[in-house]
């Protein structure tokens, strides 16, 4: 790379404010989260809006980290993850991308589609039902992260899968969160 101008221009064009590409450790998630919080506090946002962006960031990055930690060690793609926070037309967009086993694509698609079909009350009901379910023994989370994200999002969840090889795909999740002062 000769210089960073092209990268900077691309970030500016897409409204990208903060991005991290690498292994999501707890301390990286925490430090980036603090930076995001401080940045948003300087943007004259309502506290509810700051919390929504922060919470969506935490749920996305912790989901990715928990998922990649469950993939086995002989899969080198397990560390491939990226998170991007951008401001597009006044709304904050939190996006994450990670490798996913192709065997998991169908189930994740089903869950995302189910969540997107629900209105505010439907999401609340599903959220409460999921909180009440016994946790899976190998899961660090309660499987409620995506529902929490959808409850805080202003637009339906947007996602894509891109095939990497016969075993893996790349999963991208884009979440648009309220930007204006509430």
């Amino acid at each position, binding site marked *: 790379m000769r210089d960073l101008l092209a990268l900077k221009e691309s970030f500016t064009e897409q409204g990208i404010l903060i991005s991290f590409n690498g292994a999501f450790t707890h301390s990286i998630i925490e430090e980036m989260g603090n930076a995001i919080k401080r940045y948003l506090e300087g943007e004259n946002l309502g506290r509810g809006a700051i*919390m929504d962006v922060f919470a969506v960031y935490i749920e996305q990055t912790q989901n990715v980290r928990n998922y990649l930690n469950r993939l086995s060690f002989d899969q080198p793609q397990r560390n491939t993850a990226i998170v991007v926070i951008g401001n597009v037309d006044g709304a904050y967009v939190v996006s994450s991308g990670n490798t996913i086993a192709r065997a998991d694509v169908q189930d994740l698609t089903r869950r995302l589609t189910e969540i997107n079909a629900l209105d505010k009350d439907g999401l609340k009901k599903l959220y*409460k039902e999921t*909180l009440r379910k016994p946790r899976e023994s190998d899961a660090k989370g309660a499987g409620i992260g995506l529902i929490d994200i959808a409850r805080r999002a202003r637009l339906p969840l947007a996602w894509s899968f891109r095939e990497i090889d016969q075993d893996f795909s790349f999963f991208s999740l884009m979440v648009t969160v309220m930007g204006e002062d509430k």
Partner: protein
Amino acid sequence: MIDIKATSTSPRIAYRTEDRTLEIIGESYPENSFEFFAPLFSWLDARLKDPAPLKVEIDISYMNSSSTKCVLDLLDMLEEAHGGGREVSVSWFYDDGNDRALDLAEEFKEDVKLPFSIIPRTSGTDI
């Protein structure tokens, strides 16, 4: 006794014997919520065998979804004790500049019959 110090991603959890109050204060998005809250559950299980009244003050400005699950489990334990005739109550503090925090408090309150007060707290600098 339980006395867990706060970190930037986990709340302080402590019991004050003088007024029989368990306090949980801070933000909660630890690396592993279930591991983090496990000592609280063991302590509470033992404490609820004691018939003395118990007050619980919860002042968590942000909790991630797995912490929310743990807090619900905590409320379930308290609710069961309340159903069994124990004198238990919850005071839930929320940031009065944050409507979402009030919604969350009310969602927790909906699920329990034990005395549950929702108390506004003036905004600080942390969320």
